[in-house]
């Protein structure tokens, strides 16, 4: 018990600050990823060039296959080449956003594509405009799947964001790196446990939101 109190006295404030940074970083990356992936996914469902669709989906899929560490390294290197800051939030944010894109983009695209074609046909036949069909038919029906994509992205990003300590973006990765460099178990734990707890909290909160957003008629 005493060791626990001593642990929090020593690392508590830093843990709290790093956790806040971590949440901030994750949150920012997700908001940007949603702002890119959601409209892009919707656009792709309306795009009449299948080659462009598969090119974009493929490119976003490839980003996912690059090892996280390598992606961060690439972003830093490219930033260095074009003269942007290589240390701090910006490169970390770019790498995290790129990673968060895929689940949101893929779920948006596939869920809208999978709306029952007869429902869309009747909607058109009854004289709904393309926007009306999107906002009052396609999106409500796709919302649970899109939310699932956002949830997956969130959990991933919380984990990956620990690596951003490497580029001085702060976050819980900082504590983990400190523990690694100095062989300090308490620092390692102070970084790892909050990251895991964050992932669990966000996962359950978002899955609650997902259920809440599922239209009444689709719940069985």
């Amino acid at each position: 018990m005493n060791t626990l109190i001593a642990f929090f006295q020593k690392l508590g404030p830093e843990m709290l600050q790093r956790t806040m940074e971590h949440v901030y970083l994750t949150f920012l990356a997700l908001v940007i990823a949603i702002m890119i992936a959601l409209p892009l996914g919707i656009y792709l469902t309306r795009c009449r060039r299948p080659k462009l669709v598969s090119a974009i989906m493929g490119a976003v899929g490839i980003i996912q296959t690059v090892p996280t560490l390598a992606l961060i390294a690439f972003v830093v290197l490219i930033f260095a080449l074009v003269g942007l800051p290589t240390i701090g939030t910006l490169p970390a944010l770019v790498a995290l956003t790129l990673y968060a894109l895929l689940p949101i983009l893929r779920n948006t695209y596939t869920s809208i594509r999978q709306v029952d074609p007869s429902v869309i046909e009747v909607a058109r036949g009854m004289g709904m405009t393309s926007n009306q069909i999107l906002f009052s038919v396609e999106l409500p029906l796709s919302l649970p799947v899109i939310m699932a994509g956002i949830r997956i992205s969130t959990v991933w990003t919380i984990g990956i964001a620990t690596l951003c300590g490497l580029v001085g973006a702060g976050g819980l990765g900082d504590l983990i790196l400190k523990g690694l460099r100095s062989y300090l178990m308490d620092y390692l734990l102070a970084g790892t446990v909050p990251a895991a707890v964050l992932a669990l909290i966000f996962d359950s909160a978002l899955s609650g939101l997902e259920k809440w957003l599922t239209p009444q008629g689709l719940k069985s």
Partner: protein
Amino acid sequence: MIQFDRVWKTYPGGAEAVCDLSMEVAEGETVVLLGTSGSGKTTTLKMVNRLIEPTRGRIVINGTDIMEQDLIQLRRGIGYAIQYIGLFPHMTISENISVVPNLLKWPRDRTAERVDELLTISGLDPEEFRERYPAQLSGGQRQRVGVARALASDPPFVLMDEPFGALDPITREQLQDEFIELESEIKKTILFVTHDVFEAVKMGDRIALLDAGRLQQLSTPAELVENPANEFVDSFLGQHRFQLSLLTKTIKTIMPELRPTSPESGSAKSEARLRARSSLIEALDLFKKTKQATLPVYEGKRFLGPIEKKQLLKVITEVLGETGETS
């Protein structure tokens, strides 16, 4: 009125879905587009609300070429019901039926009133069904809602693409009967697609039989069965000729002679009466049910004369002979 004037639909690569189609659907009339799959019947239907655009020719509704009308306004003025129903699963029954009235910006209370009215005439209790979701309904109930939704804004034109096609035979017959009943009151101009010749005979004032995108015959059901225009029509009716004759021939056509008689007190007392418009099958059923040897025939309230079961059976035997079928 819907007019087709030399309408073609060809696809890139030369596939011809509809070739040189000219016909008219008169106001208040139900024309059934009948044909096998690939005959162009659904394409013809969908060209009317421009889900498919004609390649050549003109389709005129309300005196204006549909291509010159505003697409969205055109569609909002035409009811549309399809086989796969396409109810919005995330909306309640009431919300589903309200879609077009809402698009047309009807006042709320008018829409609500209309929803209840439509549910009632569709045989669904508004109190019970208004707030339900499509998933909570049976197939037959869903299709009733699908048809109600097509009629929601009381459009003068209705397009129906095999609306009863996905239902079991008993439910289908029930919905057909209900719709005929409903239709006799609301009098819409209807284009109705089916591949089922019995449904066509039952629902249509006239039948347009299509094959490979070409109109083979456009006539009343009775005419189609009695005088097939060509070999294709003849073979399309095929082995159903006998049954179809019994369905399309009315009692009136086989009455010995139509002498206007004053109501006969004797037979008027009999509760069972045949309507002049009844088909031979219906007449046969009634004879079976009442076990009478003679039944009075009425046209509306006018007594036309008695008909004997023997006479009916004789005509049926003749029809059987004409259609060349052996029993």
